[in-house]
């Protein structure tokens, strides 16, 4: 299984928990014999999407902007399991993770299709794929966490994911993440 880890934590101290989780996830993945590719997104040069749709309509599949996002797009295309890690930001994702996700639309097709009764775009690289999103918060915040889990479910529907997992890790709980990842990776192996 190709495991792609996108760490969306900031490079400063606020991203420490995300880095710990990313390292634990990569370690578990490799220990299970999977090919793991990991990106610390805030350390890459990824410009914001311009909303030009050239990746759909002018040069299908490639972005008009040339920067580090191209290597992320390549890894997304072949990834069987995507693991996104982010500080929970008003219930959503960090700017670093979101910048990369906004720039992922070259990997989908422009046309509308219906999926589970809703309009969505078909995938350019359709395959059985799983999505796990791990969020970090200093302390429990039920409303923020509800929004986060709902957002992950919506993303999974958009990406036609066959396995979806979302967890919020509070300060001090990072050490136990390796054990939790073992279970999530096992579930992914069975589903994909």
């Amino acid at each position, binding site marked *: 299984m190709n495991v792609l880890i996108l760490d969306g934590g900031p490079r400063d101290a606020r991203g420490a928990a995300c880095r710990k989780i990313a390292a634990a996830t990569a370690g578990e993945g490799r220990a299970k014999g999977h090919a793991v590719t990991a990106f610390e997104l805030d350390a890459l040069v990824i410009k914001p*999407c311009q909303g030009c749709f050239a990746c759909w309509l002018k040069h*299908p599949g490639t972005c008009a902007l040339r920067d580090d996002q191209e290597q992320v797009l390549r890894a997304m295309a072949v990834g069987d399991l995507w693991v996104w890690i982010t500080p929970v930001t008003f*219930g959503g994702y960090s700017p670093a993770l979101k910048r990369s996700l*906004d720039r992922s639309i070259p990997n989908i097709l422009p046309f509308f299709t219906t999926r589970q009764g809703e*309009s969505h775009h078909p995938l350019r690289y359709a395959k059985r794929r799983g999505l796990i999103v791990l969020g970090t918060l200093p302390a429990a915040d039920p*409303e923020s966490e509800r929004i986060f889990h709902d957002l992950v479910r*919506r993303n999974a529907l958009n990406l036609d994911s066959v396995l979806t997992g979302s967890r919020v890790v509070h300060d001090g709980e990072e050490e136990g993440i390796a054990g939790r990842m073992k279970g999530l990776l096992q579930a992914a192996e069975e589903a994909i």
Partner: protein
Amino acid sequence: MKALLIVGSPKGKASTSYNLGRGLLGRLEAGGIEAVETTVGAALKSSEERHRLYKAVDEADIIVVSFPLYVDQLPAPLIQTLELLADRKRGAQGATPWAGPLAQRLVAIVQCGFPETSQTRPAVDIMRQFARETGFQWAGALAFGMGGAVGGRSLEKAGGMLRNVVRALDTAAASLLSGGLVPVEAEALAAKPLMARRLYHLAANWGFRSQLRKHGARKRTFDRPYS
């Protein structure tokens, strides 16, 4: 009284988000409110521009944030802007102290290319959560679908198809002008589809094919450069 429009689209004033946000702002202006507008792109350009945004936010009684749905939620530069505003309001170290009035109403306008406005739910929830975490008064949201059919066209001159868009903006503006929130009637009007979903799919897919042909890319539509 002052109102500030923050446009969260990377296309700035050439966007559907600007068109809709300007539509609400214009109605507030007509009701006697002084209106100011800015874009997230401009605000993130430099430290001077950021401080200009802070000042505009401080002076506003009503803040309207209008943006497109990107991957189920806010575009990244808008999240970054909200983080800056939140850091400042929370008094984070190194952030310029907050000087805004105590009761500032925050309104969101979100538009998506999908026909179903239910797809904007996480984006609206995130804006509400931002208000909750930072102390703005959440005044509600107008969520529009089929954004591609609105585009940059004049809302007033477009006629029948956009009549509910116009009525939603009218209803929301009237309530905001009288000190209220975005009423549920305005939310319901915004959520009404501009046309049948099947027809929208057909029109949009035809439009995509036509654009691909125009750019000489029709045969490369399904290319997989990273296979």
